[in-house]
């Protein structure tokens, strides 16, 4: 597919008045506003640097101290051994959430962008966006009191029927396992992935769609051959944004997931078994209550690991977006 079909938005604006503006900075308001925007941009960067510096400074005592010093808190594990299972749990929960959320989001986005009648598309899009406004603690309550009892019997059936598959074995009620947590995470990332995918799908050049239709393609074939290939990078970056949200989610996971006992070093693929996983964010929220001294530093070191993971994920997302900047809704 080609980019020529769509006029470049920068070229579309007449260049003359633009250069006039730069030569004559104009009135006070103009300068004030550019000053404010510049300061805002710097503030954002400064905040990021400050957070990173804080994490590094506070984590340093834990990083530099020996395993014996932190053994009381970590139950004899070294810092790496303590953080690694948490990283595993964090990434696993986020990936399961994406496996559930991304196909659903693509389907919803396709529906809103190209299938639904205009009168329906608006309200549906609005309802999806509303999901993003619900506080995570509410998702936690909803997950624990509504979803967990609901999926329990189903998990039980799956686990008993397919007990020969280690991945699904050893379910024990209630369903406070990583899959339940991931289902709630999926609902939470759904609006982000849907909104960005929708914007990308809407930008599919009219000509591509009409050409496909003219060649006798069905609606499904239009979606498959024109819209999806066009929006692929946008969907990928949308998923990465969703991944960032899922990685950092705290309250919902804390309220739903039964974590492993402190000092366990589990890398378990038993996604229906409780007490096998824990995420970094939920672990910090839970352990910080009674922590003091070096234990706080250990927890902040785990936070530093999470910060690094989210930074990498977001950088990858930005990179994919920038490769196809003209089409993405996320830039």
């Amino acid at each position, binding site marked *: 597919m080609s980019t020529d079909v769509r006029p470049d938005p920068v070229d579309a604006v007449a260049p003359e008045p633009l250069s006039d503006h730069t030569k004559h900075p104009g009135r006070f308001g103009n300068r004030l506003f550019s000053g404010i925007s510049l300061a805002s941009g710097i503030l954002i960067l400064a905040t990021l640097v400050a957070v990173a510096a804080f994490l590094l400074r506070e984590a340093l005592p834990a990083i530099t101290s020996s395993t014996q010093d932190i053994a009381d808190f970590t*139950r004899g594990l070294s810092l790496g051994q303590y953080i690694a299972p948490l990283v595993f749990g964090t990434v696993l929960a986020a990936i399961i959430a994406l496996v559930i959320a991304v196909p659903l989001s693509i389907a919803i986005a396709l529906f809103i962008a190209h299938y639904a009648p205009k009168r329906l598309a608006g309200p549906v899009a609005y309802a999806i966006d509303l999901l993003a406004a619900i506080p995570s603690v509410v998702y936690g309550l909803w997950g624990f009191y509504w979803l967990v009892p609901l999926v329990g019997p189903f998990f039980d059936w799956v686990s008993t029927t397919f007990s020969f598959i280690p991945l699904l074995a050893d379910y024990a009620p209630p369903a406070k396992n990583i899959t339940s947590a991931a289902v709630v995470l999926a609902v939470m990332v759904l609006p982000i992935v849907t909104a960005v995918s929708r914007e990308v799908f809407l930008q599919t050049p009219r000509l591509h769609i009409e050409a496909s239709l003219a060649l006798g393609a069905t609606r499904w074939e239009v979606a498959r051959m024109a819209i999806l290939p066009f929006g692929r990078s946008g969907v990928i970056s949308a998923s990465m944004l969703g991944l960032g949200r899922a990685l950092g989610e705290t309250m919902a996971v804390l309220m739903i997931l039964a974590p492993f006992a402190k000092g366990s070093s589990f890398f378990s693929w038993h996604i229906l078994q409780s007490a096998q996983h824990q995420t970094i964010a939920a672990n910090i929220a839970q352990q910080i209550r009674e922590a003091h001294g070096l234990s706080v530093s250990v927890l902040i070191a785990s936070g530093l690991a999470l910060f690094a993971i989210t930074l990498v994920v977001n950088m990858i997302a930005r990179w994919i977006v920038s490769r196809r900047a003209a089409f993405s809704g996320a830039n």
Partner: protein
Amino acid sequence: MGNEVKQSIRRGTYAILAASTALVLAACGSSASSGDSGGSDSTAGGGESAASGDLSGNLAGAGASSQAKAQEGWVAGFTEANPDVTVTYDPVGSGGGREQFLAGGTLFAGTDSNFNDDELASGTERCAGGEVVELPVYISPIAVVYNLPDAGVEHIQLDADTLAKVFSGAITTWDDAAIAALNPDATLPATKITVVNRSDDSGTTKNFTDYLGQTAPDVWTYEADDAWPIASVQSGDGTSGMIATVGAAVGAIGYADASQAGDLGTVAVQVGEDFVGPDADAAAKGLDASPLTDDATDLRITYKIDRTTTEAGAYPLILVSYLAGCSTYDSASDAANVAAYFTYVTSEEGQARAAEPSVAGSAPISDDLRTKIDAAIAQIKGA
């Protein structure tokens, strides 16, 4: 369309900016105010009379979260009688509470575990040459809770070995012969037992594992600890998470403050030849039946809870939380405030307030213990 998106993204950026600015400001504000409260405590109300009734000033404390609910009740009750004293209690945890108290940041601490020798040594400096005062003020029976709606008895009865085997995973179903032999009248289903532990660090877990270790040393070979010592099967965050998790699955068993057990069944544990349920009187008896620690003094009334007691009607599965202060404070008004607050907390009125189910549901201390505590409080003085 592209422009619209860009615009909305721009709008979003400003919203984020505004939010982050607000956060930064809030963070500055809160750190400043907490610094203030720490510093002003020692100077506030310096010239006030020490007579009770017209006390004033700030009285900041921090410590164990186990007694946080009781502290809320005590703070409210004390403030009614002494409206000019501002009492605060920050439930930062026992360790953090002792740390802040020894550093001079707070005037009193709440703690589940006793001050160790190092802490007592630095306490002398903190207390202007005086000593650390430790008073048991909060007794809470820990109930072993279970979810068996059709058991048909008030309490399932378990001896220590059976209880330890259930929690270590050696007994896996409710109709196990060992449980059935102790409960001839109960209807025991073949349901699997799901053991639930607290997933956060908790004094409740420490006291429960201490109980198992002392009463069933052959089965439960792990040391008492704030965190669950063995592989977890199912867990809940905090007391409410524990209760909700046990309530969510038939066949689950866990442990929690007896006052929070709600509709769940509670286990009667074996004491001597009898089985005793987790009620308040039995819990207070459990403490009275325990000896003082070796290093206890008139000022530090610290108990080594005897979980293996055979005293009739005593319930040894209890959590005891202490109030800690100084025998000597730099400022006479601080000393008067602390003494007045401690007196209120340990008074019949204060203990009854904490015992209300809507406050903490704790067990009131006995009159014998109150006499000892009053003698210790009488020694709290200004330098």
